[in-house]
Protein backbone atom coordinates (compact mmCIF):
# COMPACT_ATOMS: atom_id res chain seq x y z
CA UNK A 1 0.00 0.00 0.00
CA UNK A 2 2.65 2.54 1.09
CA UNK A 3 4.72 1.46 -1.91
CA UNK A 4 2.23 3.05 -4.36
CA UNK A 5 2.45 6.43 -2.67
CA UNK A 6 6.17 6.71 -3.40
CA UNK A 7 6.52 9.98 -5.29
CA UNK A 8 9.67 10.30 -7.35
CA UNK A 9 11.21 13.75 -7.52
CA UNK A 10 12.39 13.10 -11.06
CA UNK A 11 10.64 10.60 -13.37
CA UNK A 12 12.39 7.22 -13.18
CA UNK A 13 14.25 6.56 -16.43
CA UNK A 14 12.31 3.67 -17.99
CA UNK A 15 14.81 1.72 -20.09
CA UNK A 16 13.35 0.71 -23.48
CA UNK A 17 14.97 -2.71 -23.44
CA UNK A 18 13.79 -3.58 -26.98
CA UNK A 19 16.89 -3.81 -29.18
CA UNK A 20 16.58 -1.06 -31.79
CA UNK A 21 17.46 -1.98 -35.37
CA UNK A 22 17.60 -0.12 -38.65
CA UNK A 23 14.52 -1.31 -40.48
CA UNK A 24 16.06 -0.40 -43.82
CA UNK A 25 19.06 -2.66 -43.38
CA UNK A 26 16.90 -5.43 -41.92
CA UNK A 27 14.25 -5.40 -44.64
CA UNK A 28 16.81 -4.63 -47.34
CA UNK A 29 15.04 -1.47 -48.47
CA UNK A 30 17.35 0.57 -50.64
CA UNK A 31 15.21 3.50 -51.78
CA UNK A 32 12.82 5.62 -49.76
CA UNK A 33 10.07 6.96 -51.96
CA UNK A 34 9.14 10.57 -51.15
CA UNK A 35 5.71 10.05 -52.73
CA UNK A 36 4.67 7.27 -50.33
CA UNK A 37 3.05 9.30 -47.56
CA UNK A 38 1.86 6.53 -45.26
CA UNK A 39 5.32 5.01 -45.16
CA UNK A 40 6.90 8.35 -44.25
CA UNK A 41 4.31 8.87 -41.52
CA UNK A 42 6.21 6.32 -39.44
CA UNK A 43 9.16 8.72 -39.27
CA UNK A 44 7.44 11.90 -38.20
CA UNK A 45 5.72 12.65 -34.91
CA UNK A 46 2.18 13.93 -34.62
CA UNK A 47 3.33 17.51 -35.07
CA UNK A 48 4.82 16.57 -38.42
CA UNK A 49 8.39 16.86 -37.16
CA UNK A 50 11.07 14.31 -38.08
CA UNK A 51 11.71 11.66 -35.40
CA UNK A 52 15.31 11.46 -34.17
CA UNK A 53 17.43 8.39 -34.80
CA UNK A 54 17.54 7.47 -31.13
CA UNK A 55 13.80 6.82 -31.23
CA UNK A 56 13.48 5.17 -34.63
CA UNK A 57 16.85 3.41 -34.46
CA UNK A 58 17.60 3.99 -38.15
CA UNK A 59 21.23 4.18 -39.24
CA UNK A 60 22.74 7.53 -40.23
CA UNK A 61 22.81 6.77 -43.95
CA UNK A 62 19.09 6.00 -44.06
CA UNK A 63 18.13 8.75 -41.63
CA UNK A 64 19.51 11.25 -44.16
CA UNK A 65 17.50 9.59 -46.93
CA UNK A 66 14.37 9.68 -44.80
CA UNK A 67 14.96 13.35 -43.98
CA UNK A 68 15.39 14.21 -47.64
CA UNK A 69 12.30 12.22 -48.63
CA UNK A 70 10.18 13.91 -45.94
CA UNK A 71 11.38 17.35 -47.01
CA UNK A 72 10.52 16.60 -50.63
CA UNK A 73 7.10 15.29 -49.61
CA UNK A 74 6.51 18.47 -47.66
CA UNK A 75 7.49 20.57 -50.67
CA UNK A 76 4.93 18.98 -52.96
CA UNK A 77 2.17 19.12 -50.38
CA UNK A 78 1.93 15.46 -49.43
CA UNK A 79 3.16 15.97 -45.87
CA UNK A 80 2.46 19.07 -43.77
CA UNK A 81 5.31 21.26 -42.52
CA UNK A 82 3.65 21.63 -39.14
CA UNK A 83 0.34 20.40 -37.80
CA UNK A 84 -1.17 19.72 -34.45
CA UNK A 85 -2.67 16.25 -34.71
CA UNK A 86 -1.37 14.44 -37.72
CA UNK A 87 -2.05 10.82 -36.90
Amino acid sequence: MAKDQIKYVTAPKVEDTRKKYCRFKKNGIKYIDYKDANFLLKFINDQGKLLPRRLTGTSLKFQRKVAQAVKRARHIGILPYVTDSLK
Partner: protein
Amino acid sequence: MQQYETLIVLTPLLSEETAKEAIAKYRGILTANGAEIINEDSWGLKKLAYPIQKKTTGYYHLTEFKAPGELINKLEIEYRRDERIMRFLTVALDKHAIAYSEKKRSGAFNQKKEAKSQTEEVAG
Protein backbone atom coordinates in the same frame (compact mmCIF):
# COMPACT_ATOMS: atom_id res chain seq x y z
CA MET B 1 21.01 9.99 -70.72
CA GLN B 2 20.10 10.28 -67.06
CA GLN B 3 16.78 9.05 -65.75
CA TYR B 4 14.55 11.65 -64.07
CA GLU B 5 11.19 11.81 -62.41
CA THR B 6 9.16 15.00 -62.40
CA LEU B 7 6.00 15.65 -60.43
CA ILE B 8 3.76 18.67 -61.10
CA VAL B 9 0.83 19.95 -59.06
CA LEU B 10 -1.73 21.79 -61.18
CA THR B 11 -4.32 24.16 -59.79
CA PRO B 12 -7.68 22.44 -59.24
CA LEU B 13 -9.54 25.37 -60.86
CA LEU B 14 -8.88 24.33 -64.40
CA SER B 15 -11.23 21.79 -65.95
CA GLU B 16 -10.28 18.24 -66.82
CA GLU B 17 -9.34 18.90 -70.41
CA THR B 18 -7.27 22.00 -69.71
CA ALA B 19 -5.34 19.92 -67.19
CA LYS B 20 -4.85 17.22 -69.81
CA GLU B 21 -3.82 19.85 -72.32
CA ALA B 22 -1.22 21.31 -69.94
CA ILE B 23 0.20 17.83 -69.38
CA ALA B 24 0.23 17.17 -73.12
CA LYS B 25 2.16 20.41 -73.59
CA TYR B 26 4.95 19.23 -71.29
CA ARG B 27 4.95 15.78 -72.83
CA GLY B 28 5.48 17.56 -76.15
CA ILE B 29 8.39 19.58 -74.77
CA LEU B 30 10.04 16.42 -73.49
CA THR B 31 9.61 14.37 -76.64
CA ALA B 32 10.58 17.30 -78.87
CA ASN B 33 13.92 17.68 -77.07
CA GLY B 34 14.85 14.03 -77.37
CA ALA B 35 13.64 12.75 -74.03
CA GLU B 36 12.27 9.24 -73.81
CA ILE B 37 9.21 9.00 -71.59
CA ILE B 38 9.19 5.78 -69.59
CA ASN B 39 6.10 6.11 -67.48
CA GLU B 40 3.32 8.63 -66.88
CA ASP B 41 0.95 8.45 -63.96
CA SER B 42 -1.57 11.04 -62.86
CA TRP B 43 -3.04 10.82 -59.40
CA GLY B 44 -5.81 13.25 -60.24
CA LEU B 45 -7.18 15.62 -57.61
CA LYS B 46 -5.64 15.06 -54.19
CA LYS B 47 -6.04 16.93 -50.95
CA LEU B 48 -2.97 19.01 -50.09
CA ALA B 49 -1.51 18.82 -46.59
CA TYR B 50 -1.47 22.63 -46.42
CA PRO B 51 -3.08 25.28 -48.64
CA ILE B 52 -0.93 26.25 -51.64
CA GLN B 53 -1.93 29.54 -53.29
CA LYS B 54 -5.11 29.51 -51.17
CA LYS B 55 -6.19 26.18 -52.65
CA THR B 56 -6.57 22.98 -50.66
CA THR B 57 -6.52 20.43 -53.49
CA GLY B 58 -4.17 19.91 -56.41
CA TYR B 59 -4.04 17.85 -59.59
CA TYR B 60 -0.93 15.67 -59.35
CA HIS B 61 0.87 14.33 -62.40
CA LEU B 62 4.05 12.25 -62.38
CA THR B 63 6.32 11.65 -65.38
CA GLU B 64 9.35 9.39 -65.50
CA PHE B 65 11.70 9.94 -68.39
CA LYS B 66 15.23 9.57 -69.66
CA ALA B 67 16.78 12.82 -70.89
CA PRO B 68 20.07 14.63 -71.43
CA GLY B 69 20.97 16.79 -68.45
CA GLU B 70 20.54 20.24 -69.93
CA LEU B 71 16.89 19.61 -70.81
CA ILE B 72 15.92 19.79 -67.13
CA ASN B 73 16.74 23.47 -66.85
CA LYS B 74 14.61 24.29 -69.89
CA LEU B 75 11.77 22.19 -68.55
CA GLU B 76 11.82 23.96 -65.19
CA ILE B 77 11.85 27.40 -66.80
CA GLU B 78 8.69 26.37 -68.62
CA TYR B 79 7.19 25.20 -65.35
CA ARG B 80 7.96 28.50 -63.67
CA ARG B 81 6.49 30.44 -66.55
CA ASP B 82 3.23 28.48 -66.55
CA GLU B 83 0.87 29.82 -63.91
CA ARG B 84 -1.35 26.73 -64.00
CA ILE B 85 1.38 24.83 -62.16
CA MET B 86 1.44 25.47 -58.42
CA ARG B 87 4.37 23.21 -57.51
CA PHE B 88 6.84 21.02 -59.34
CA LEU B 89 9.69 18.74 -58.32
CA THR B 90 12.23 17.10 -60.64
CA VAL B 91 14.38 14.36 -59.18
CA ALA B 92 17.28 12.43 -60.68
CA LEU B 93 16.87 8.71 -60.13
CA ASP B 94 19.82 6.58 -59.01
CA LYS B 95 19.98 2.85 -59.60
CA HIS B 96 18.06 1.96 -56.46
CA ALA B 97 15.31 4.41 -57.38
CA ILE B 98 15.11 2.98 -60.90
CA ALA B 99 14.87 -0.56 -59.52
CA TYR B 100 12.20 0.60 -57.09
CA SER B 101 10.08 2.21 -59.79
CA GLU B 102 10.35 -0.83 -62.04
CA LYS B 103 9.27 -3.10 -59.23
CA LYS B 104 6.44 -0.78 -58.40
CA ARG B 105 5.28 -0.75 -61.99
CA SER B 106 5.48 -4.49 -62.30
CA GLY B 107 3.16 -4.75 -59.32
CA ALA B 108 5.67 -6.75 -57.31
CA PHE B 109 5.18 -4.17 -54.64
CA ASN B 110 1.73 -5.07 -53.41
CA GLN B 111 2.98 -8.27 -51.83
CA LYS B 112 6.25 -6.70 -50.66
CA LYS B 113 4.43 -3.89 -48.92
CA GLU B 114 2.24 -6.35 -47.07
CA ALA B 115 5.25 -8.54 -46.37
CA LYS B 116 7.08 -5.53 -45.00
CA SER B 117 4.22 -4.45 -42.81
CA GLN B 118 3.91 -8.00 -41.51
CA THR B 119 7.55 -7.94 -40.47
CA GLU B 120 6.75 -4.73 -38.64
CA GLU B 121 3.88 -6.27 -36.73
CA VAL B 122 6.09 -9.19 -35.80
CA ALA B 123 8.93 -6.94 -34.80
CA GLY B 124 6.88 -3.93 -33.69
